[in-house]
């Protein structure tokens, strides 16, 4: 089915198209009727069109262009040619999780210093996955500081209840020894004006201010009973997408334990302006 170069799917709608989104499809939520995109965005189906769900299932992993109306409802969907894996499909094949030890900084001043030197020259239309990946890569390559990534995953019930526009968000996470205690800070320059605690960061997105349930398995979020608002995973800086976390549960598992320069370059090109001369 995916061999079709292009299909055009017009969904009956009188609303004017408001936005065009290009992305790979992560999954389709049949119960709540929305599409999760790898960019983190969510696109809702109108209730009358949820019968398309069977069609949507095989779109997972496909590159699509979606047009949405003012209410973030799908108006038009077309498939696009696959761009291929930015990392060339190459991933480490390891039986056990590779050891990863994030750098523990000394004091909050070191955290603030990293925040202030994050590349702020990002494009208006850029994705959190690309920004986070480049920020983490640059800090590692320039200053040899190993960061983690923190992923917040929003449950379908939360998305539906709040008409939330994203199903996940990601940012670099640094550790620092503050007065003898190791604390973690999220570096999300686009949305926060300072290094933020994980709770402060999630409160920006979880309006109930409930804590996100921590998990080490993506599948726990994927099949969750919709009793939480949000799940959270903390993993190494090498992971860019939720798919990278999901792959850790493959048989055999796929763990990332290094950078893929081609992928970093692609993220940089997608998310950041070129340096001014």
């Amino acid at each position, binding site marked *: 089915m995916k061999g079709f170069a292009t299909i055009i799917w017009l969904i009956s709608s009188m609303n004017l198209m*408001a*936005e065009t989104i290009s992305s790979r499809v992560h999954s389709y939520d049949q119960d709540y009727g929305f599409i999760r995109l790898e960019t983190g965005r969510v696109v809702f189906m109108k209730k009358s069109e949820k019968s398309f769900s069977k069609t949507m299932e095989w779109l997972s992993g496909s590159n699509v262009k979606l047009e949405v109306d*003012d209410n*973030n409802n799908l108006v038009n969907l077309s498939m696009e040619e696959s761009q291929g894996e930015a990392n060339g499909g190459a991933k480490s094949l390891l039986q056990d999780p590779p050891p990863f030890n994030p750098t523990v900084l000394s004091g909050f001043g070191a955290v603030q210093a990293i925040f202030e030197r994050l590349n*702020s020259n990002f494009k*208006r*239309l850029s994705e959190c996955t690309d920004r986070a990946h480049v920020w983490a890569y640059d800090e590692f390559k320039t200053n040899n500081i190993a960061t983690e990534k923190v992923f917040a995953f929003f449950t379908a019930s939360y998305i539906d209840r*709040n*008409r*939330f*526009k*994203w199903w996940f968000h990601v940012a670099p996470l640094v550790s620092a020894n503050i007065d003898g205690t190791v604390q973690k800070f999220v570096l999300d*320059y*686009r*949305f*926060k*004006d300072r290094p933020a605690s994980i709770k402060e960061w999630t409160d*920006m*997105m979880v*309006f109930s201010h409930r804590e996100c349930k921590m998990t080490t398995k993506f599948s726990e979020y994927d099949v969750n009973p919709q009793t939480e608002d949000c799940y959270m995973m903390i993993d190494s800086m090498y992971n860019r997408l939720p798919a990278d976390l999901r792959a850790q549960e493959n048989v055999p598992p796929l763990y990332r334990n290094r950078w893929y320069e081609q992928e970093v370059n692609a993220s940089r090109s997608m998310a950041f302006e070129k340096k001014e001369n």
Partner: protein
Amino acid sequence: MRHQLIALTCIVAMVSCGRSGGGAKSESSANLVSGELPGKYKAQLRPMNTQANGFLPSGAAEIIASEEELQVKTYLDDDTKVMHIQDIHEGTRCPTLADDTNGDGFIDMVEANNVVGATIVALDGDLATHMGGQSNYPRGGSFTYNRETKLDYVIQDYNENFRRGVFQLEGKVVMIHGTSEISRIPVTVQAMNDLPRNLTLPIACGILKRK
């Protein structure tokens, strides 16, 4: 609608007038411009009151101040196609939840103004005055706004209405307002005058820093 636009003008007047030294254009503006003013400034605009409609609006304000002109560019990526009131304020920090004095979880315009203070430049159709530009604030979900004016006009307007030293941009607050009328905004959110609460709700804020 006309009633609302008049009210909008009054809003800005409320937070910036009453301190006027009168309408006399007596002093040369040039001698009240800080010699350090010329330069490039940028404020990263970060989301506020995100619970209103489930979106995280963000953008930036970029200002070039030369010896003679003030060029302002702002952009915002939002998903509500409404009028976005946007101003430069005399304050030097953005409000936080600690400034939510009525404890409803929102920073409304009244609470925000307690922190950011008076409007010193309204980023509307006429940069030369701090008065709100009625219908000339930008509209749209995502927008880009570009305006320029003679710096003298801005300084003169500032001198006539604010007797608080030289006009400067470093450290000043840029704030943008406005969300959809179908947003979830509790009745405890305070608007100003007759403007609807959704149009006055602050949605993004940042601090100007020299580049």
